[in-house]
């Protein structure tokens, strides 16, 4: 077993343990902190996959923005839940069965697909430059980039409009 495999297994164990905590912890602030642990583990995986840029984006966007946003929302709405009573609805055993069945289904599909396990080619060192060129080239991905930018703008304006308190005006 190589060092990389040991790092992967440790990271995977941390990610899975933290993810289970995210969906089972009663205290939602703790759940959000476990979510941050999961997201950090994901950044480690991106580094293992030689996608350093995505690891940075993961830390900046997910941990820096989305996780903070979620913690904000939890604290703004904390009073009603008070972390008392059941945090799961009455159908949680059904949900567990569905999740396990889904896991089995995905596992069977992956095994039956018969993946080739050949070692990957080396990632070129200037692939970040290539990514930038492709994202701004009209022959490649400039339309998806603009569309996703428009989606983000619409999302931000929409969330401001939705969350605005109309009674104070």
């Amino acid at each position, binding site marked *: 077993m190589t060092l990389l495999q040991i790092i992967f297994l440790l990271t995977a164990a941390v990610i899975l343990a933290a993810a289970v905590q995210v969906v089972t912890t009663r205290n939602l602030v703790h759940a959000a902190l476990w*979510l941050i642990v999961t997201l950090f583990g994901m950044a480690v995986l991106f580094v293992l*996959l030689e996608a350093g840029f995505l690891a940075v984006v993961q830390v900046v966007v997910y941990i820096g923005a989305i996780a903070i946003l*979620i913690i904000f929302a939890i604290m703004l*709405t904390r009073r009603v839940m008070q972390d008392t009573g059941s*945090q799961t*609805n009455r159908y949680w055993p059904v949900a567990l069965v*569905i999740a396990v069945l889904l896991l089995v289904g995905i596992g069977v599909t*992956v095994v039956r697909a018969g993946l080739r396990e050949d070692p990957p080619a080396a990632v070129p060192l200037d692939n970040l430059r290539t990514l930038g060129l492709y994202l701004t080239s009209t022959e490649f991905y400039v339309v998806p980039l603009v569309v996703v930018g428009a989606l983000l703008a619409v999302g931000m304006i929409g969330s401001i409009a939705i969350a605005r308190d109309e009674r104070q005006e």
Partner: protein
Amino acid sequence: MIPLSWYLALAAALFCVGVYGVLARKNAVAILMGVELMINAVNINLVAFWHYRTPLAVSGMTFALIVFAVAAAEAAVGLALIISIYRRRQTVVAEDVNMMKF
């Protein structure tokens, strides 16, 4: 070398944990956290397949980047909706917001 199937197994497990969170949690913010877990599992798959199959192209990374942006928009709109519901109805329990239920 880490086998590709390890990444797929981890992503599948993470996705199913997210599915359980979405289906079982009462609190709407916790449901959104389950959705984030699922999005991250898909992102692992995208980047793993890029790294093992087409590392010379950048299409896999582009895909992952777009998923990041969509996840950010989703979190912003979802949390805005939750805060708006909390303002009007004083609840964040998904079961209590059932006025559009058939």
